[in-house]
């Protein structure tokens, strides 16, 4: 598994995700936003968290139009894997690789805490080492994570079982209080139609070693490299 982590001006989680990918067993290289091609042999393109272009205009809007994104689109169209975390998810939505948009958290606060998620389908390269409906605990850190889409898109996402993770409480209950940012249907992450593109607001890369306070994110990176 060769992963390419794409660096945009203002990315700041690229080191974290590169470390998690290596721990999982992947070979990692960095790619630059102004490049027009991904490194040779890239199996997985990773868009890390951060504040690309200072969140100017809309989160991820300018990064989504960077030259490297044409290469990421082509990679995804060939069936290549793409993972966008936090700002990476926002970039994927802005680039059209995933539907919908992440808007300002319903409560307006920047949310930075540990959060439980319920895992959706597990027949994808991202979640194959989890169990369906497993409750995992990872970190969230975002101001614009409120997933919004039109009714038709939402119906399609649900109908095609493309919700990857939902915000829940420790018991796995999907209740209003657990929907921390006001996302439609508690959506924390979604897949593309072919299940090869995953965008998610939470940070699995920050829970991969015991000293970080948990390892619930590690199965994603192990699964990707397996």
């Amino acid at each position: 598994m060769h992963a390419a982590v794409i660096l945009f001006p203002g990315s700041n989680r690229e080191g974290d995700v590169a470390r998690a990918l290596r721990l999982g067993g992947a070979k990692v290289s960095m790619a630059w936003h102004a490049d027009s091609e991904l490194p040779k042999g890239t199996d997985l393109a990773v868009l890390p968290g951060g504040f690309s272009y200072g969140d100017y205009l809309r989160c991820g809007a300018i990064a989504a139009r960077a030259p490297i994104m044409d290469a990421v689109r082509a990679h995804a169209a060939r069936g290549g894997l793409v993972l966008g975390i936090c700002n990476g998810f926002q970039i994927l939505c802005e680039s059209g690789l995933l539907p919908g948009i992440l808007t300002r958290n319903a409560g307006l606060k920047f949310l930075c805490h540990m959060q439980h998620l319920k895992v959706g389908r597990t027949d994808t390269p991202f979640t194959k080492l989890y169990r369906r409906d497993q409750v995992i605990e990872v970190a969230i850190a975002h101001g614009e994570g409120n997933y919004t889409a039109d009714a038709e898109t939402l119906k399609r996402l649900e109908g095609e079982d493309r919700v990857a993770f939902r915000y829940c409480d420790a018991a796995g209950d999907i209740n209003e209080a657990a929907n921390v940012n006001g996302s439609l249907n508690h959506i924390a992450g979604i897949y593309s139609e072919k299940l090869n593109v995953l965008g998610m607001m939470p940070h699995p890369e920050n829970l991969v070693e015991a000293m970080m306070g948990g390892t619930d994110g590690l199965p994603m990176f192990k699964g990707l490299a397996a």
Partner: protein
Amino acid sequence: MKARVTVTLKTGVLDPQGKAIEGALKSLGVEGITSVRQGKVFDIEVETQDKSRAEAILKQAGEKLLANTVVENFRVEVL
């Protein structure tokens, strides 16, 4: 020639920032406001002197970048 693109949230899209501003105005004693929706204004200069050409350029700008049409509408004015 000078032009303006105005981006507004579509009806029904939650606008927590607008709500916060509305609350702040009320707490400042500015009376008679029923609701606030926040948008964006882009003042843009275009090379052309041709009005319809300018409108076409700005429409392209709005669609390609300035607005996310999932939640936003935009309006072009050549001033």
